[in-house]
């Protein structure tokens, strides 16, 4: 009875509150708390710059996420293309007037935050595709024009991001886009062909890579070939994780990070610190929380009525999964070092903003699960 009357545009506030997905919410809060403590640990057990601003961001973006969740899913559908265009313009802006740090021009100064548009692009591309395929007939998906547009939409930001240069984010954007295309029903042939083409062109791509990127690829295959240079990060990260053991060295007792052997410990290598201090047990628990989170998003996707919401949820769940696995594989020495943050855990405003926007879309899909989009 509740269902019949309530899933309209005119949901009451309490109904909205009640249809929040609390499992997902708890997962987000849990990871948020874990990340706050990890950040506190990277600051050497003091409330310093990184931990303070991370906690502030968590609170601000989490609150923002709650508020955005009340927006009707139709809003996201309506603004899908616009959102993409704005982020794309920001990317272009960044490539001209962006702030350069550690050899890469990827930030734009918005006074209250240094925004990294490439992170937001990870979400924007999913929303764009979800809208693009929402109304499309199954038979038209593999039409030539319907192939060309998504390709252009994906290729543009990738080229922009890769030229910043930020290979890691470019790859993640590409992967997010490809997941949506796959779910949207693009013919398997194209995936096979393009991956074949990718492998064939691999040597050429490598020849276009920056020297430091080439070095990273080489180092991945044999970290010991340059233990103090390019291989240093992988080796130190593996030492950190490995020395954690079953239960870890204890909170604030991770020597690898505390003694600064670990590079980029609050961003890409935050998981190393966590694994060192909390061991196998902690790592598996964290992974479980992530798994529950992903599962919940997929579950929401499976119950929503609109194709837009469904495609978004499925894609976002997969994208989050990709971010997590790429980051973890990297710190565990399974993939070459490419800059890729761990969602929520890693320090970084833009990444967190993008993730939180994603969550609010998912939450909105849950709240307005019976909403149809014309």
């Amino acid at each position, binding site marked *: 009875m509740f269902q019949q009357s309530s899933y309209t545009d005119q949901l009451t506030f309490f109904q909205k509150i009640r249809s929040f997905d609390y499992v997902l919410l708890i997962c987000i809060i849990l990871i948020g708390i874990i990340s706050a403590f990890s950040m506190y640990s990277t600051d050497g057990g003091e409330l310093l710059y990184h931990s303070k601003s991370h906690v502030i961001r968590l609170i601000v973006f989490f609150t923002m996420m709650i508020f955005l969740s009340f927006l009707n899913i139709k809003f996201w559908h309506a603004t899908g293309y616009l959102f993409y265009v704005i982020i794309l313009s920001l990317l272009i802006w960044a490539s001209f007037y962006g702030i350069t740090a550690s050899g890469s021009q990827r930030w734009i100064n918005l006074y209250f935050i240094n925004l990294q548009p490439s992170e937001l692009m990870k979400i924007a591309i999913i929303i764009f595709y979800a809208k693009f395929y929402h109304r499309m007939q*199954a038979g038209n998906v593999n039409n030539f024009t319907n192939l060309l547009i998504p390709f252009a939409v994906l290729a543009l930001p990738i080229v922009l991001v890769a030229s910043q240069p930020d290979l890691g984010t470019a790859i993640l954007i590409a992967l997010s886009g490809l997941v949506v295309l796959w779910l949207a029903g693009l013919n398997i042939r194209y995936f096979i062909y393009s991956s074949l083409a990718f492998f064939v062109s691999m040597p050429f791509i490598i020849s276009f890579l920056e020297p430091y990127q080439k070095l990273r690829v080489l180092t991945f295959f044999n970290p010991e070939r340059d233990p103090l240079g390019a291989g240093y990060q992988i080796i130190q990260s593996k030492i950190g*994780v490995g*020395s954690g053991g079953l239960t870890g060295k204890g909170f604030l007792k991770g020597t690898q990070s505390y003694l600064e*052997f670990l590079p980029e410990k609050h961003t890409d290598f935050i998981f190393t610190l966590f*694994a060192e201090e909390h061991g*196998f047990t902690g790592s598996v628990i964290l992974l479980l929380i992530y798994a529950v989170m992903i599962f919940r998003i997929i579950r929401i996707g499976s119950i929503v009525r609109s194709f837009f919401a469904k495609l978004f949820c499925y894609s976002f769940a997969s994208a989050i999964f990709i971010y997590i*696995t790429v980051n973890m594989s990297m710190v565990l020495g399974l993939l070459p070092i490419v800059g890729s943050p761990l969602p929520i855990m890693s320090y970084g405003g833009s990444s967190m903003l993008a993730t939180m926007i994603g969550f609010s879309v998912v939450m909105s899909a849950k709240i307005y699960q019976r909403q149809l989009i014309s």
Partner: protein
Amino acid sequence: MFEGGDSTFRKLNTINRRMFIISAAKVVVFTGIVTRLFSLQINENKKYLTLSDKNRLREWRLPPVRGQFLDYFGNVIAGNLKVYQLHVVPEQVENFKYLMLRLKDILEIDDKQFSKIIKKKNSQKPWETLIISENLSWDQFSKINFYLHELVGAKPVLSVARSYPFKKNYTHVLGYVAQASENDLIKNETIKKNHVPGLRVGKIGLEKTFENDLLGTNGVQRYEVNAYGKRINQLDHKEGQKGKNIRLTLDTEVQKLSNELLAEKSGSISVMDIYTGEIIAMHSSPSFDPNLFLYGISTKDWKEIREDPLKPLINKTVSGLYSPGSTIKPLVALSALENDVISPNQKVHCNGKMEMYGHTYHCWKEKGHGTMNLRNAIKQSCDIYFYETARKLGVDRLNLTSFKFGLGNTVLNGVLANEKKGLVPSTEWKKNNLGVGWVLGETLITGIGQGYIQTTPLQLCLMTAQLANGGFKIYPRITVDKNQESLENIKYKMAQNAFKGKEKKYSSPIRKVEELLNIGSKKYLPLYRNPENVKFVLEAMFASTNEVMGTSYGSRIDDPKYRFAGKTGTAQVKKITEKARELDLHISQIPYEERDHALYIAYGPYQNPRYAVSIIVEHGGSGSKTAAPIAKKLFKLIIDRHELREKITNQNLINT
């Protein structure tokens, strides 16, 4: 319900199917990550834990504390002194340049030294300690402390360094330490193992010989360091093992007196226990202060020492080679008696010179001694008598006796690296080494201790000791041996061996049992054939010192407690020409380098001898005028110290 009918259905079908595939893939990938985590954290945990410890733990080795040298009475003669040093850790200094300039000003560091320090600073890491000064004077130290508030980063530190409190007195015996060189590291494993920058090691003398015992082991401080090698906190501190202390047989008082007696002179004094072989004193003059070498000797001081014509760098006691002169005569007499070449009653007439093989051989006494028997010849040191005795004896038999009594070989068995063997000539030696046959005239001059024969002062001391103890072999030593046999034991063994020597041919069953049980000692064997011969020579030496006309009669001590017996020697450095002989110049009229060496060997107290002495004063003139008076003063002290020494010896026997 859904808009769009079939197409929508197909779309949903696809997305759900494909989502299922992706989800399956996710499970696989997550499992993969967990597996990886498991392999890193559980399976290889030990490996990574070790690697992590290797990362964060760093050991700092501290210089070992060097063992001390003690004299027989337990006084420290080479110890570890507390010194004040000034350290600076450049990393902790805000304005290094300013600090250095201030320090330069306060400590009055000269430009050369200053640039050396700067150079050193540039060669090391910024968190490594830079030693500005290794040995601050008290003045400098208090000055630094006074200005400390404006010298942020400068650390006055208390450290240990070698010190030789008796300065000149033990230089040649102990040697000295200085900073370990590359060569030291290559040659000595123990040094290499315990080396830390700035480590001092023995360069010469006993400091070098006993390096491995003295060195000790490093203390270790274990620190946790960060990725940049900076120390974060100290985890543990392991004390190193202090080097062993080494007690010497030397007596500082006698050593000091020796130094005084030879002041301004070039020469050597050795004193030995005639039974235990313990060296009581061993001094070479002139000496120098070994403390100068600790922090690198100044060019000026070094030049002074190196260019001193009296050669302070040479340890004359073991490295100085001298013709023994007349001090060899007791041995020549003994050899002749042992070989039945002469009898004590053999008479030789001395009229100052003798002709033989176309040469004229002179006695030191121009007018001659008249008719001499052996006793008088030793007493008055008649050269003519010993020319004649040597001629009858022949150089080869003298050679054998000399070797037996310790000439021609090192005394301390390599304990002092620069000890020389000396030379006791024989016909075979000359043929092999000079390629020329022996000339009989050379036998004559060997008989009075001139010619090829060369001995070190310590050899002469050992020779005297082995005569004075009745003619038994002893084993000289400079370090105290815990297992040193007691005097009674040694004397008992000597008596046993003497008895056995008499009954050589007679082998009783008791003897055989003794041999089987190895009771009869192979040590302290008699060096004579007939003990009466040794007694005769010793008695003649007594006469030489204590009877009128004896060559050292002027230096005698009548008190039986101190009475000693000796033999003078005057070794020619240059062949005396006929012209010079006629001139008969006074010593002061002869250039220093051409003056005779003065020698004296002695043992005492006469009735119950215990100590042997040998004295050499280079270019000191005659033995009786220069060397013998030294013995007189020396014996007074040696005998006075005897009681105390015995007390210490007995204590040690009880203690060990």
